[in-house]
């Protein structure tokens, strides 16, 4: 099987090369035959990589420890579930997973465009194949997952890092990869359009939904990563500006800028070159992020081991930069805007400002992440850029973005007049200022939560106002009830109102971030039967228990949580634990437990223990509003669902009546999804 796997990788290189050549010939000769052949070539690459990936998974399942990668990242005691997911647990396997996912996306994109956008498809396929070839070549020459021990193959594996044996780590990397790699498809379409010179609406139509899909997967991946850090690492937070987190955050920032500014191109035929630049930057940042985490360039708690694939990535990033920016410069005359910016008080300008801020944030995060490595390379001295430095800059940047989230929808395209500004802004501004005043009166003196709460209220009111005014217009015009008017409004302008729901999700996230300012932490030694008070809770240590499940030793603290003000009824029972894995190398993990309510989490970690005296070192934290961060992500998903919901097809007049139920069913599904998210949050 390992030989079969290696052969598949080599065959993929050949197939990708042949496909790229066929596609280039299709463009040169304008031949439908060559293009069709190239399309099947893309399916061939997908088939070969599927074979290779499944072969590697099979090797994990079959416990073939003669394969180095399998031996390094699994062992016999691991549950089957984690054996399968260990596929992406290490460097070379995750590279294979990466290129496999890209082949899946590529095959879907080509299939979607089998009857359209034929003119730009050849170089879209060439680009896709070149990127695939790069990853496969890197694997074959520098990180082959099918490498075997020549002699003396071990009979058991070293085991997967216990931190990765967590349900969130099962869903987080695929989601992140789907998002990361999703940006490759719009990039390929952009290059296809640049080479062909057909820069009208075709390529935008072809890649618009891909951008949204990539963006939503990246958002979910980042949130799941935050959840994993929160529930597995035991430090009580969800974001630490770690280089690996930053690597995924950088393309998210430029991708978000692109999703916004592409609307200006669609509506006003402006920012054409800017949009091209943004999609190229987003793709290059995904490559840079991948290089940072895999080459040992930056130090991180969860970066992959140092390896020499950095040279491959460095070369390819340089190549991709030169080619894509060269094409952009070459096509600049065709990318001239058809309208000029008429006023700075317009939605176009709000989008541009949003783009500048997002781009500034992306460059800041990239620079600050790479700074320690650059500094060490230049001076030989170690320097650390910690979370406080990132927060110093990123909190104001984030708040400006939040402000623009509220301002943008209130402005009109082209220009806004003073009267309309006053009419649109007075209520949100009043509520925003009122909220800040109320929070100030409540005793909060830190500027970050004060401004955040005020801006959250401002943006929430702008969104509510938009919904209400739209619904009121429909109620007057069509004599509809509020509910019907709101549902019709959503149905008729899904992109706009889906976007608003995403923005509301962002408001909830910022509301959750603001909770960090009110965090309470306590760390103390507690004996069996003793209690400790924190926030509104009293926590009692009932017992320390010891168990072994064959894979690990588990020490668990049994805690009971009560209301601080004399309540005798327990609110919850918590079981924070320490797990001592036998493999790899006696690794220890802290298993967090928490008591969650809508407004806060009581977060418990077992720091240490003394089994003889039945005492435990407990780290307790109260994290206010943290659940709003996850709820915000759920709203973003809901908004995405609304925005990409397919347009209602016009039915023939004689269509059966039940066919007309489809829109109602769509609306019901959206409402159900929303209700589920809300229930999950409350539950």
């Amino acid at each position, binding site marked *: 099987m390992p030989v079969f796997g290696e052969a598949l990788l080599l065959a993929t290189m050949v197939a990708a090369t042949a496909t790229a050549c066929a596609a280039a010939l299709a463009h040169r000769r304008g031949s439908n035959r060559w293009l069709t052949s190239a399309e*099947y070539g893309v399916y061939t690459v997908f088939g070969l990589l599927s074979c290779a990936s499944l072969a590697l998974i099979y090797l994990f399942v079959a416990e073939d420890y003669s394969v180095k990668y399998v031996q390094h990242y699994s062992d016999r005691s691991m549950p089957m579930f984690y054996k399968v997911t260990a596929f992406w647990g290490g460097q070379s396997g995750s590279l294979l997973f990466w290129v496999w996912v890209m082949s899946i996306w590529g095959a879907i994109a080509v299939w979607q465009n089998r009857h359209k956008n034929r*003119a730009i498809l050849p170089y879209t396929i060439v680009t896709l194949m070149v990127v695939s070839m790069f990853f496969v070549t890197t694997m074959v020459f520098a990180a082959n997952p099918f490498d075997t021990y020549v002699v003396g193959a071990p009979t058991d594996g070293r085991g997967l890092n216990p931190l990765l044996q967590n349900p969130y780590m099962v869903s987080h990397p695929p989601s992140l990869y789907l998002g990361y790699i999703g940006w490759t498809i719009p990039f390929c379409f952009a290059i296809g359009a640049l080479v062909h010179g057909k820069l009208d609406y075709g390529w935008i139509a072809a890649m618009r939904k891909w951008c949204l899909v990539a963006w939503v997967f990246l958002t979910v991946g980042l949130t799941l990563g935050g959840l994993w850090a929160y529930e597995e690492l035991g430090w009580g937070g969800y974001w630490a500006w770690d280089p690996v987190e930053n690597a995924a955050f950088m393309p998210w920032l430029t991708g978000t800028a692109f999703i916004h500014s592409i609307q200006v191109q669609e509506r006003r035929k402006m920012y054409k070159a800017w949009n091209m630049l943004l999609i190229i930057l987003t793709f290059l940042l995904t490559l840079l992020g991948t290089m940072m985490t895999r080459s040992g360039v930056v130090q991180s708690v969860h970066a992959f081991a140092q390896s020499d694939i950095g040279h491959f990535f460095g070369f390819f990033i340089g190549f991709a930069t030169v080619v894509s920016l060269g094409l952009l410069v070459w096509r600049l005359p065709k990318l001239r805007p058809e309208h000029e910016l008429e006023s700075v008080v317009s939605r176009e300008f709000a989008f541009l400002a949003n783009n500048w801020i997002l781009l500034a944030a992306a460059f800041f995060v990239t620079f600050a992440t790479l700074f320690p490595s650059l500094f060490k390379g230049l001076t030989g001295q170690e320097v650390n850029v910690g979370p406080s430095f990132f927060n110093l800059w990123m909190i104001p940047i984030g708040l400006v973005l939040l402000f623009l989230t509220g301002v943008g929808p209130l*402005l009109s*395209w082209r220009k806004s007049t003073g009267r309309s500004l006053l009419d649109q802004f007075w209520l949100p501004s009043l509520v925003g200022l009122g909220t800040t005043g109320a929070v100030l009166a409540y005793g909060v003196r830190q500027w970050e939560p004060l401004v955040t709460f005020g801006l959250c209220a401002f943006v929430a009111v702008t969104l509510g106002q938009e919904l209400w005014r739209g619904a009121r217009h429909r109620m007057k015009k069509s004599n509809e009830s509020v509910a019907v008017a709101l549902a019709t409004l959503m149905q008729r302008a899904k992109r706009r109102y889906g976007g608003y729901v995403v923005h509301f999700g962002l408001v909830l996230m910022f509301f959750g971030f603001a909770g960090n300012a009110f965090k309470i932490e306590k760390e103390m030694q507690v004996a069996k039967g003793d209690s400790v008070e924190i926030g509104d809770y009293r926590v009692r240590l009932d017992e320390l228990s010891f168990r072994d499940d064959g894979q690990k030793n588990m020490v668990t603290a049994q805690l009971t949580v009560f209301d601080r003000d004399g309540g005798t009824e327990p609110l919850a029972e918590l079981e924070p634990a320490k797990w001592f894995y036998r493999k790899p190398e006696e690794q220890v993990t802290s298993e967090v437990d928490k008591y969650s309510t809508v407004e806060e989490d009581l977060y418990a970690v077992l720091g240490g223990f003394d089994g003889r005296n039945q005492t435990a070192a407990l780290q307790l934290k109260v994290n206010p509003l943290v659940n709003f961060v996850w709820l915000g992500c759920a709203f973003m998903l809901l908004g995405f669902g609304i925005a990409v919901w397919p347009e209602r097809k016009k039915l023939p007049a004689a269509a059966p*009546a039940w066919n007309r139920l489809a829109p109602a069913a769509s609306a019901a599904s959206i409402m159900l999804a929303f209700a589920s998210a809300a229930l999950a949050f409350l539950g």
Partner: protein
Amino acid sequence: MDGMVEPSRGSSSAPSATSSPWLAAAQVGLGVVVLALLLAGRGGGVGFVVFFACGAAAVFTAWAVGRAVSSLRDPTLEGPLTAEGNREALEHEKRLALLGLRELEADIAAGKVDPADADHLKRTAEQKALQLIHRLREDDATWRHRAEDLLRDEGLGVEPEQSQSPAPRPASPAAKPSGPVADRRAFDERPAARVPVDGGHRCAGCEASVGAQDRYCGSCGRPLEALT
């Protein structure tokens, strides 16, 4: 409409080219099942499933390779890369124009647009949407005429559907619609009546189905009379 003249790439119109890969794929598939059964002991049920999926992927690959090679000899794929993308881009632009019009109305209703500006913006947006609808209709007509010519060349004369083709026949089949509509012919801007049909409505101008809320016919672009 373009489907009438576009070569059917997915169809199996070249039996000699396609049957052998299928046969080979079936043989490989059978081999995979046998191998999977033999190797199931190593990875248990999950191993069997993964191995079987791997085999299925191999069969798919064999099929794709076969099609990639046979496409180069497929006579149905003869011909240059056409510019169907223009059509796609036009339709996308039309969708955006209609969406923009809808949003503009919402903005006007919400008081975001200066009343002095509103009329001008609305008129411009409506004109743009109408132009796009008309260009699409011309595109339809061009393709329909090309198809009719093809059929006539084959000796299969067709009667043009008068009610479905109000656009004039282009001077040459190769002539592509371009430039502003106003340059070439006047657009019928007279409001059309809404004819009730089985609980829905049709445009009296072109008989296409229209919604009760629609103010323009999505097919011919004529304004529709308001329902009273």
